[in-house]
């Protein structure tokens, strides 16, 4: 009788152990996620305000950044002629605040800004505009500047 009780106790103990072990055994799962390489670009507005013929604007800046993404890139910049009528090259740009004469002339062809823009590392592009003497008066002069990202 004692032996049977002993065996029953052993079975009970082992059952409890087994249940415990099986209950605490958790499955090992592997979760995977695909993170694509992406590049993005963002740029802030600029405005030169009102300028008299023969005058050069003060320095205005556009911040070029990558708000999201993980693939740094070197953007390019290009412009279009001012409308109704003023050459694109009256606008100049540079990566630091220098004199108008030292700046790069904006053209209709893509030009590299020469500096890498990545997530968390925005760059400041400086612009200046010179109005040629004899330029017709007007309030509606507009220009389009395009930043391009390639990746």
């Amino acid at each position, binding site marked *: *009788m004692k*032996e*049977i009780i002993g*065996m*029953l106790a*052993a*079975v009970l103990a*082992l*059952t409890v*152990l*087994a249940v*415990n*072990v*099986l209950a*605490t*055994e*958790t*499955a*090992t*799962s*592997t*979760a*995977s*996620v*695909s*993170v*694509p*390489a*992406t*590049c*993005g*670009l*963002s*740029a*802030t*507005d*600029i*405005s*030169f305000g009102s300028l008299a013929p023969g005058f050069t604007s003060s320095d205005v800046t*556009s*911040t070029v*950044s990558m*708000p*999201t*993404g*993980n*693939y740094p890139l070197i953007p390019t910049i290009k412009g279009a002629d001012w409308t109704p009528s003023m050459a694109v090259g009256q606008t100049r740009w540079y990566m630091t605040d220098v004199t108008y004469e030292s700046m790069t002339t904006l053209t209709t062809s893509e030009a590299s800004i020469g500096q890498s823009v990545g997530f968390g590392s925005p760059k400041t592009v400086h*612009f200046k505009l010179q109005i040629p003497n004899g330029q017709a008066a007007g309030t509606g*002069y*507009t*220009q*389009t*500047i*395009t*930043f*391009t*990202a*390639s*990746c």
Partner: protein
Amino acid sequence: MKRIMILIILGLLLASPVYALQQIAGPLVISVPIGGTNSAKYGLINDENETITISLRAEGDVAKYLFFPATVDLLPNKIIYTDITAKIPADYDTSLGGNITGYVYALQEGKPGQVKINVQMKKSVTILIPGLPPKASKTVETTNPQTTIVSTTQPTGITGLFALVSANSFVIVLIILVIIVLMFIKIKGGMKK
């Protein structure tokens, strides 16, 4: 003081980055036989909080062989894939080679103002025609889409003896069965007595 604050806030609002476009990195390479068509997916992401419309255009030698929508609506914060379809006519001039390159541009126009700042994405596109050698060696961007596999393994929380036994749970069940069999033999033996 109030005026200064208003001016500062106004300045910050005007300086906020409102043009934000993103694309999946890596060139589009489309393999198309003569007289056939094939497509690749161009992934674009709108970083803004509202739907934007971007315009697509192609430049370079590939331009006349590519077909895609002129405009695409991009929902906020979502990858939108657009089919870029390449079609090589049956009468394709094989002297042009089997490697046609160019770019697809996705343009997001800026807000109208004295200076309108546009942002555009440029994507390298190559059409490969099987069986035709390239006309001349051309540089193709070799960015590979990055894929990261993040593996999470949940801890079992079992250590020491439990860990040891856990590895052999089958053995435990076997021992229980043996004990039960032994019990039956014992009980049977007792009954005989």
